[in-house]
């Protein structure tokens, strides 16, 4: 049952997409809210008296303006995207709600990884070599050319290239290709894709809340192994780049002309301290980083999201809401995405050393539904997360790394 008491002086926000954690955070916050989600959420919302407008987020089409009109008539001030698929919808809706047509173009830019990289390049942000591929031939050509550029001789091991879907979130559809043979494993329907050269460096992500074009809170998430584990705040080894990273984010805000909201970009930093931009998303990150932030700092990141989007938020509110980065953290919160390591599994068994570790917090793993494990072809489909919390970032990092050697499904 919604028990919300909202402040009528503040904005009225719409959450695009269904996320129970986001709804609960909104319900406990002082902004009036409405959930815009597909009709399968209707029964649940009705049962629990959650304010709700049904909408199926398919591709944008002629009818798209309907939802913008509906929300406008309800008096909604801003729409907040919760998932990659609702980013363009938020852009389209907000351009109507705020009468700023530019917002729609911005959203389309943030939805297409190839366009995004071009725009970054134009803004003077350093990116790796990238190209669009429409078929397997393109991939083989790109792989050869990248390795030629690196002055590799025949027989030297190739540097890998990365393939990503244009418009999918995070690691979904991410593949690493090292040899032309591997190109055959890509299904036709995945094309077109974005290809990028591999950067030997340290990959990390940033979460930045933006208010009036300025950074309200900047978090650096340290990846221990991409697609497996992440923790916040980062180790001092990475945090020492904070000022440089802040500069990069400010460049990004300027280049993409972002006034408000939240961005989640990824970067590489190479051994010579050069930052390379990977990609940026205009929505909450996957891998439950919001939950990790709440654990580490104690503030609700979804409520921060609502503040950053609401045009009626004041500077004072922002100051009062967000803690001071790193120093205000009570500890380090990390999570590990479990992939079964065996081909045939029959049950879930949390390793004793993991479960008894002082840092072990909880897990979201469920017993296996099938005995045979599908072979993993791309990143991004872990079977559930395991959460840790502790005082020492290095213990955290090594602990997360060590989990990769353990069997959770046997």
């Amino acid at each position, binding site marked *: 049952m919604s028990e919300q008491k909202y402040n009528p002086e503040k904005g009225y926000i719409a959450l695009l997409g269904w996320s129970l954690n986001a709804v*609960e955070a909104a319900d406990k916050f002082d902004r009036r809210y409405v959930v815009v989600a597909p009709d399968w959420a209707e029964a*649940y919302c009705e049962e629990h008296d959650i304010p709700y407008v049904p909408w199926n987020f398919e591709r944008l089409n002629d009818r798209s303006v309907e939802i913008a009109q509906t929300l406008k008539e309800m008096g909604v001030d801003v729409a907040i995207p919760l998932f990659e698929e609702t980013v363009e919808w938020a852009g389209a809706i907000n351009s109507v709600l705020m009468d700023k047509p530019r917002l729609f173009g911005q959203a389309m830019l943030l939805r297409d990884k190839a366009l995004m990289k071009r725009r970054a390049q134009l803004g003077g942000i350093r990116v790796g070599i990238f190209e669009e591929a429409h078929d397997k031939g393109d991939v083989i050509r790109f792989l050869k050319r990248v390795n030629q550029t690196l002055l590799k001789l025949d027989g030297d091991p190739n540097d890998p290239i990365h393939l990503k879907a244009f418009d999918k979130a995070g690691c979904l559809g991410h593949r690493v290709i090292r040899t032309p043979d591997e190109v055959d494993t890509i299904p036709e329907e995945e094309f077109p894709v974005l290809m990028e050269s591999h950067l030997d460096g340290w990959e990390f992500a940033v979460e930045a809340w933006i208010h009036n074009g300025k950074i309200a809170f900047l978090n650096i998430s340290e990846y221990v192994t991409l697609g497996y584990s992440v923790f916040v705040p980062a180790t001092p080894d990475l945090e020492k780049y904070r000022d440089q990273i802040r500069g990069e984010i400010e460049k990004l805000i300027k280049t993409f002309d972002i006034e408000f909201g939240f961005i989640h970009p990824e970067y590489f930093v190479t051994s010579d301290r050069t930052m390379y931009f990977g990609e940026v998303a205009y929505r909450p990150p996957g891998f439950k980083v919001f939950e990790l932030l709440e654990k580490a700092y104690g503030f609700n990141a979804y409520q921060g999201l609502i503040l950053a989007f609401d045009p009626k938020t004041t500077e004072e509110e922002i100051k009062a809401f967000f803690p001071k980065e790193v120093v205000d953290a009570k500890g380090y919160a990390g999570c590990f995405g479990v992939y079964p390591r065996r081909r045939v599994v029959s049950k879930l068994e949390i390793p004793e050393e993991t479960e008894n570790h002082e840092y072990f917090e909880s897990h979201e793993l469920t017993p296996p539904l099938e005995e045979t494990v599908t072979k993993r072809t791309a990143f991004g489909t872990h079977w559930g997360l395991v959460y840790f919390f502790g005082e020492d970032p290095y213990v955290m990092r090594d602990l997360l790394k060590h989990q990769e050697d353990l069997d959770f499904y046997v």
Partner: protein
Amino acid sequence: MSDHQPGSAAPAVNFDKLVQRLDDAIQAMEESRSFARAGKLPRVLDTARRVLLQPGGCEVIEERAERLELAGVFAGTDWAEPGILLPTLTTHSLQSQSADTVVIEAFSELRLLAVARGHYLHPSVSAEQAHYYLTQVLAINLGLLFGMTGEAEREQGKLALISQAVVQYVADHIGYEHVIDSLIEEIWRILEQRPIQVTDVRRMITQIALCRADPQADLGGAGRGADRLISSLYGPTRACSEDPGTVVYQQRLETMDAQALQNEATGFARSMHDTGLVSPYHASFIRFILADQDTLLSEALGLSSTGRDCLLCYRELVHTLIEEGIYPETAQGIYGLALLLERGILYQPPVAPALWRQARLSLCSYARERLELAYGYQPQPGAWLIQGVLNMLGQPLGVGQGNNPTCQSARALSMWAYNDPDYLLQMVAWAARDNEIVMHFEGQPVSSARSVGGVASEVTLDLDPVSLVVVPHLDRIYVEMGRLCVGREGDPHKWVNPEFHGWSAGRGFAINVDVSTGKLHDLEGFIRHFYASYHPYYNGNQPLIHPQPAGIAVTDSAARFIGWHAITILRAALDPDGEMRIYFFNPNNDSGQNWGDGVKVSTSGNGERFGESSLPFEQFTSRLYIFHYDPLERGEPAEVNEDALRRVTEGVYRSWGQDRVPADALQAEPPITD
């Protein structure tokens, strides 16, 4: 940097931190919006599981019992209403392989412990109720309490440690003496119903015996009352009191004089009639005296003059039945034989020849396999079947349906054994020898061999030997008869019951539920008619002649409808306190049930014979939905007084009839208020 290396030993658990984590998880649940609360539960359960695995874990949970309940860990489950929890179900959840089930059950037990100790004032359970409930939980889970683990615990892995820890923690605070003593009471309560199947009772007694023999288990003064039970199985007489084994006992018998043998015989008989349990030594003894001391047989069976008379008339038949059917493994048959002789049914002309057939019956492979599967290869399946027949004829009200939905078939077997023993023997012969039973439905033959599925997809093996062989056939015939009624208007029992049970079941049929709508139908007329047919004050003081099938709407301890159930009405009579009661047979394995709203089925102490259940007439009528009567005898609806009528009707409305009141009935008869 950490020196934590891959493969290093599991670090010791920091218990304080773990408890802090549990508190955090509970707090997250407490602060959660109700619509998101379910999502916070897994973390609470998993953290609690880890806490429970640590020493001192139970205490931590008990301290937080109230918080946990208020946070909503039981919301939406049966555990939310502790007043209706059944102790028997705890075994299943404590042995579950699902961690969440085990943890929730542990929460519930520890919560009730907190209530019982006065630490938690619960809105719906009193400290006394909680205490009583927990003693029963302990009694039923004795194995866990004393660390006797079986297959279920092996399958469960580490979770079994939680179940054990919880049960032991509860026992530490409730006291062991309560456990053993209430278990003993429970066993006596079951034995007073004289069931044919005593496997579970034997197992429980064995468990108590093992606990008492275990120097590790400190029972205090408890368990003394178990002597009679343990000795009835393991040493009922002087010559076998220290449980020497049948081989040694056999040697002792050979050296005994007449007086010693006489003492043994009376010792065995006394023990058997006292408990309804038979020791394997008893079988050794009877086989021994059969050779040339058979004058002691009557003594060893504990027969009265009726039984002795019967034994003398049919000496050879009895000898043959013992030789073929009574072994240490099938000793329980001795009790059946004694009661069979006491009933005098051998004097019915067809019974003795039918038993001669039984003694020499060759079994079909299907019957053979089922018996071997359930009882093993020693002795022969035929011996087991003889034991079963003796028990069923001796204890017709001891039939149980086991863990099967076949109450109809169990009821039929009991009715025939009670009323029509040679017909029962005919059924057994057809099923065991020919693997086919043919009955007739309105003149049309119905064969068990040609009918497909029954009510039960598979009839389990926890049955007496006769049921084991015959029930699968009866079940198929019963369902086939139901199928032949498809398309007829009304309840099929109307036609099936008399055809299935035999001519003595009344052809008249009364039902108070409209089959098409499920609503109550002419409740008042139904009640008046039932009184007119069965109540001695309203039917001209005519005792019931033949046992009659009847249908009961079974309700749980909260008076909620559970399902329709078949029983047999045996008689209506005044109890020792002068109250009119219905005495009936319930094929359910344990008839002492609480049907809610004050209706508690009694199995002893109110004039019941062994195996009978009873309820005051009005209470019984408030759960009745089908009965049979003789249409030619039907009198006028009884002038039941308004008060009695109202009490019965309201009993129906408050329990199974709650959602079945037809819309117009409420207008026609507004509920009378006091």
